[in-house]
């Protein structure tokens, strides 16, 4: 995937990581997006997106604490990298520019 275009879902996942900072991990992100968009989200898609973003260099990860609920497994906490935040800001910039100049008529 060339360029800095973020997919719609990837952007949601990245923003959730930011909102939940410093507790952004799989299950929490999934619940957050589900609550926000009132759409069902599967854990595997969230994980796939997290890893895609990590491969692109937009997210960094490190291991957090293990809990009994997780059967003793640690959770992976994600954080936004500098490159990631740049990409987010760029995307936001384009959208805000377009929102600012879109005439009301076009929105029906």
């Amino acid at each position, binding site marked *: 995937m060339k360029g800095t275009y973020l997919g719609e879902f990837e952007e949601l996942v990245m923003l959730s990581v930011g909102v939940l900072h410093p507790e952004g*991990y*799989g*299950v929490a992100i999934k619940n957050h997006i589900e609550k926000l968009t009132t759409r069902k989200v*599967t*854990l*595997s898609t969230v*994980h*796939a997106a997290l*890893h*895609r973003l990590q491969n692109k260099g937009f997210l960094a990860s490190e*291991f957090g604490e*293990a*809990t009994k*609920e*997780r*059967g003793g*497994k*640690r*959770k*992976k906490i994600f954080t936004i990298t500098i490159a990631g935040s740049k990409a987010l800001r760029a995307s936001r910039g384009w959208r805000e520019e377009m929102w600012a100049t879109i005439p009301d008529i076009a929105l029906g």
Partner: protein
Amino acid sequence: MRNDNQSNPPKWASRFLHWYCKQSLLEEIEGDINEEYYSILKNSGRKNANHYYINQVFRFFRPFAITALKINNMFIHSVLKNYLLVSFRNLKSDLLNTSLSVLGLFLALLCSMVIYRVAQYELTHDQFHEKAELIYRVNYDETKNPNSSRRLATVGPPLGPAIKEFYPEVKDAVRLRYSRPSIVASNDQRFNEDGIFYVDPSFFSIFSFPLTQGSIATALSQANHVVITEEMAIKYFGDNNPMGKILTFNNFYK
């Protein structure tokens, strides 16, 4: 149902996950699934939780999470990866079409395999006879007769010796006459037997059926001789030597 306060996810699903999942991702994935599992367990009970767990284990069976298999040949590896990618995309974008195509391919393959096997079976039937290439069967065909369109698998008994006499190319001939199922009896056992044939003594010179006991020269030298399979010998005479014993056949000595 279990009496434990805390039940555990289905073991087999967990084993499957451990098998396919990349080691580097296993801990976080398993941890996340467990976390949701236990919360569903608390809220909706064991059955729902188990269903959820199994569902998730299969949902995670995606390229990013699967252990990388070692293929040393870079070329083959990339080509395979590309083919897989293209086929998955086709499947995703057009499930019906792709599955129909796959089904069609499968059926085509199945049909060709069946046809091959049937042809093979027909062509290699009874090839164990040494002289198989030289053995011919004489049938009866009346279709050249304008009044009849009969074809028979049998011919009259005189043909056997007659064809040998008239055609020097015919080295030997044997006739087989099917006998209807009959009661065969020894001193101790009686059974209804099918597969009884009257044959000419030249039977063993033409067909390759090895004799466990006795010799080809004497096996059918007289009209009341009979040759039976080893199975039959055990069935009628047990452990005793069947040679020289008598089997009656429809109560006639034959």
